[in-house]
C-alpha cells in the first residue's frame, strides 16, 4: 500500500511538473505585456521599462519559470502583476466563493439527481420514467449560461426573490452568502443533475440485472427494498466517477456563470487575469486547478474504496 501510494505520488509529481511546464509555455507565448497593459496608451517607453523591471519581467523566461516553480514548491504563488498583492491571498479570497459555489451546486445536483435517477430506474418504462428522462435530456441540452439568463430574468428582475448577482460575502451569516449563491448554483446544477440522474438510472438498471438482486428478491425483499438496499450503493461507483469529474468542472468551469452573476470567483479571476495579461495569476490559478483535479481524483479513488470493499483489499 505504501509503495502504491508512493508510486502514485511520484506520478502525481511528474504530472504536476509537466503541467507547470505546459502552462508556463502556453501562457508565456500569449501576445501582450502586463506592463504596457497597465500603463495604457500614453505611457512612455521608459516608464514601461521601469515597470517591467519592477515586476521582474526583465528576467529571462527560464529564470522566471524557475522563480515561479521554486516559489510554488514553497507555497509562494508570487505577486500579481496588476493587483500587486500576493497571488495566494487573491486565490484564497476567490476560493471562498468558488468552493462554496461548487459544493452548493454539487449538493443541489446530487439532491436532484439521486431521487430522480432512482425513481426513473425503479419505474423503468413507465410514463414517469419517460418524462423524467425527457426532462434530463432537455437539462443536458440547455446551455447553462442561457439558463442563467432566464433565471435572472424571472427570479431576480421580475420576482425579485434573489439578487441579480454579486456575492454578499459570509460576514452577514452563512444564509446571506448562500442566498446570493443560489441562482448561480441552480444554473450550474441543472445540466450536472441531468447527467448525474441519467448515470444513476443506467447504473441502477445495470445493477438490477445482476444476480444478487435476484438473490435479494428471493430473500423476500420487495422490488423497492432490493433497489435501495442492494442497488443504490453498487450504483454509486459510476456515479462517484461522474461526481468527481463534475466537481473539477465546477471549480474551473463556472467562468461563464461567474460572469453572468458577476461573482468574484476563481473563474473570473483567471478570465480577468488573462485579459490583463497578469501571467503569474493565470499560471498559478491554472496550476492550482490542475492540482485540485488530481487531488479530487485521488479522493474519488478513496471514496471508491469506501463504497466497494473489493478495492479496499487490493493494494
Amino acid at each position, binding site marked *: 500500500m505504501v509503495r502504491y501510494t508512493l508510486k502514485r505520488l511520484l506520478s502525481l509529481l511528474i504530472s504536476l511538473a509537466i503541467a507547470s511546464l505546459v502552462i508556463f509555455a502556453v501562457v508565456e507565448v500569449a*501576445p*501582450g*505585456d*502586463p506592463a*504596457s*497593459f*497597465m*500603463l*495604457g*496608451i*500614453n*505611457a*512612455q517607453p*521608459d*516608464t514601461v521599462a*521601469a*515597470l517591467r523591471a*519592477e515586476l521582474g519581467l526583465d528576467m529571462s523566461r527560464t529564470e522566471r519559470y524557475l522563480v515561479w516553480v521554486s516559489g510554488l514548491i514553497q507555497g509562494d504563488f508570487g505577486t500579481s502583476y*496588476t*493587483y*500587486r*498583492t500576493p497571488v495566494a491571498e*487573491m486565490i484564497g*479570497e*476567490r476560493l471562498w*466563493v468558488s468552493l462554496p459555489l461548487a459544493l452548493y451546486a454539487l449538493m443541489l445536483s446530487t439532491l436532484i439527481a439521486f431521487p430522480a435517477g432512482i425513481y426513473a430506474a425503479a419505474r423503468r418504462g413507465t410514463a414517469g420514467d419517460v418524462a423524467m428522462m425527457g426532462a434530463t435530456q432537455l437539462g443536458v441540452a440547455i446551455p447553462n449560461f442561457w439558463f442563467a*439568463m432566464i433565471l*435572472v*430574468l424571472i427570479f*431576480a*428582475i421580475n420576482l*425579485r426573490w434573489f*439578487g*441579480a*448577482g*454579486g*456575492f454578499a*460575502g459570509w460576514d452577514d451569516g452563512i444564509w446571506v452568502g448562500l442566498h446570493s449563491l443560489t441562482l448561480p448554483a441552480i444554473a450550474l446544477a441543472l445540466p450536472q443533475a441531468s447527467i448525474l440522474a441519467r448515470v444513476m438510472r443506467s447504473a441502477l438498471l445495470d445493477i438490477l440485472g445482476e444476480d444478487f438482486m435476484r438473490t435479494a428478491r428471493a430473500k423476500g425483499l420487495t422490488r423497492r427494498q432490493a433497489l435501495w438496499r442492494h442497488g443504490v450503493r453498487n450504483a454509486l461507483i459510476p456515479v462517484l466517477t461522474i461526481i468527481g469529474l463534475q466537481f473539477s468542472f465546477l471549480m474551473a468551469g463556472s467562468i461563464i456563470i461567474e*460572469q*453572468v*452573476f*458577476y*461573482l*468574484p*470567483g476563481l473563474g*473570473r*479571476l483567471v478570465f*480577468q487575469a*488573462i*485579459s*490583463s*495579461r*497578469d501571467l503569474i495569476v493565470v499560471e498559478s490559478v491554472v496550476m492550482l486547478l490542475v492540482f485540485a483535479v488530481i487531488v479530487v481524483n485521488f479522493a474519488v479513488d478513496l471514496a471508491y474504496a469506501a463504497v466497494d470493499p473489493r478495492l479496499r483489499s487490493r493494494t
Partner: protein
Amino acid sequence: KGTVTVGLQLEPPHLDPTSAAAGAIDSVLYSNVFEGLTRFMGDGSVVPGLAKSWDISDDGTEYTFHLQDGVTFHDGTGMDAEDVKFSLDRARAEDSTNAQKALFAGISDVSVVDPMTVKVTLSEPNGSFLFNMAWGDAVIVAPESIGDIKTTPIGTGAFKFSGWVQGDKIELVKNADYWGTPAHLDSATFKFISDPTAAFAAMMAEDIDAFSGYPAPENLPQFDADPRFQVLIGSTEGETILSTNNKQPPFDNVKVRQAVAHAIDRQAIVDGAMFGYGTPIGTHFAPHNPAYVDLTGQSAHDPDMARSLLAEAGFPDGFETTLHLPPPSYARRGGEIIAAQLAEVGIKAEITNVEWAQWLETVFRGKNFGLTIVSHTEPMDIGIYARPEYYFQYDNAAFQQLMTDLNGTTDPAKRTEMLQQAQKIIADDYVNGYLFQLAALGVAKADLQGLWVNAPTQATDLTGVSWAK
C-alpha cells in the same frame, strides 16, 4: 439613507492612481479619496483643489501654489508643501511608473517656499499646466503612505477608503475631518459588474443605486420609462474613431482614406452600435468644446463617391484589410457595422476581436493593423496627431508646427483659432475615420441627485451626491 452603491464596469487593478493608466482607478478614487492641486468639475472646468489659489509669473514658467489650510490625509498626518513636492517629483522621476508622465515633462523644478506654499518651475510656458494638474495622475500623495498605496490608498478627499473585496466591490466611508464641504453620504460602495447583462439585471433588481458608464445603451429606454430610475446622458472626452494605419498601403493614399470616410454611415453606427447615443464628429475634437468645428459634411455618407475614389486610387475592385476590435461594445458592434458598410464599396475588412492587452501589443505598439476602432478618451488630445510615431502614424510637418506654436500660445482667442485650424487639417487629410463622440451614459435611482452627467475625466465624484427627501 446615507449610503449609495454605484456600479462600475471595470475594477481597478490596484488603487494607486499615479502609477497605472487604468481609468477604473480614477472612477473610484478621483476626488472622492484623492485630490490634486486643481480639479475638474462636472462641466469640465478646472477649479482650485488642494491649492486654494496660485500666482503665475509673467513669462508663464513659474507657478506659485498656495495650499488649503488644515488639510490632513486620512491617516491623520497633515498635508503640506513637502507632500506636494514629493508627489510631483515622484511622478517625473527617472524610474517613475506614472502612466501620464508626459504631463509632468515640462516641470524643471519643484520647491517648497513655506509649508503652505509650493513653487513649480516649468522649462517653458505651458498653457495647459493647470489643466494637467487636475488629472487623476497628478493627485497629491504622502510619502508615509506611499508604500501601501496600491492596497490602502490614503488621500485627502471627502471619503476614506475602507475596504476592497477583490473581484467584487470597494467601500468608502465619509471622512469626518474633511477640510472642505463634507460629503452628504456616510458611505459608498462601488460594485464591479463587467457584464452588461449583469449590469442591467443588477440595476433592475435594485441591487445597486446607480451605474456610472453604463455599458449597454440599448437598455436605457427601459430605464427611462421606469419611474424608479433616471437616465443621465452627457458627453465624454472620447472621440471614437476608425483609426487607420496611415503608413500601411493602401491607407498611405489619402484618396483611399477619403473613400473609407465616405463609405461610413455615422448615423447608422450611432443608431446600430450605440442605440442613438453619441454625437457624430467630423474631426478629432469634442463637440461640446467651444473651439469645435462641425466638419461632418466633409465626409458625408456617399458610397458612390467612395467607390469612385477607390477607382481613382487604383482599387476599382476594392481591397482587403484587417479590422482589429478591442472589447468595448462601441468597437465590437461598430466594427461589425463598419465592416458591412466597407463591404458595400468593395473593401473587405476582416474582423479580429482582440483584448486590450493584445490590442496594445499588436495595434498600438506593433502598428500591425489596417483599421481599428477606439475611443480616445483623454481630454484635448488632438496633439497626438503631431506624433508621427503614434500608432496611426500620421506625419504632417505643418500640423506638427501648428501644435508647437499652440503650446507656446496663451491667448484664448488665438488658441481657439489654431485649434480649429488643426481640426481642419486632419479632416482634410482624412487621417482617421471620425465616427462619434462617446456619450456618457449613466443610470441612477430617480431620487439620487448630484451625480456628474458629463464625464470630463473618468471619475464618479460622489462628494456632491445625496438622496432627495
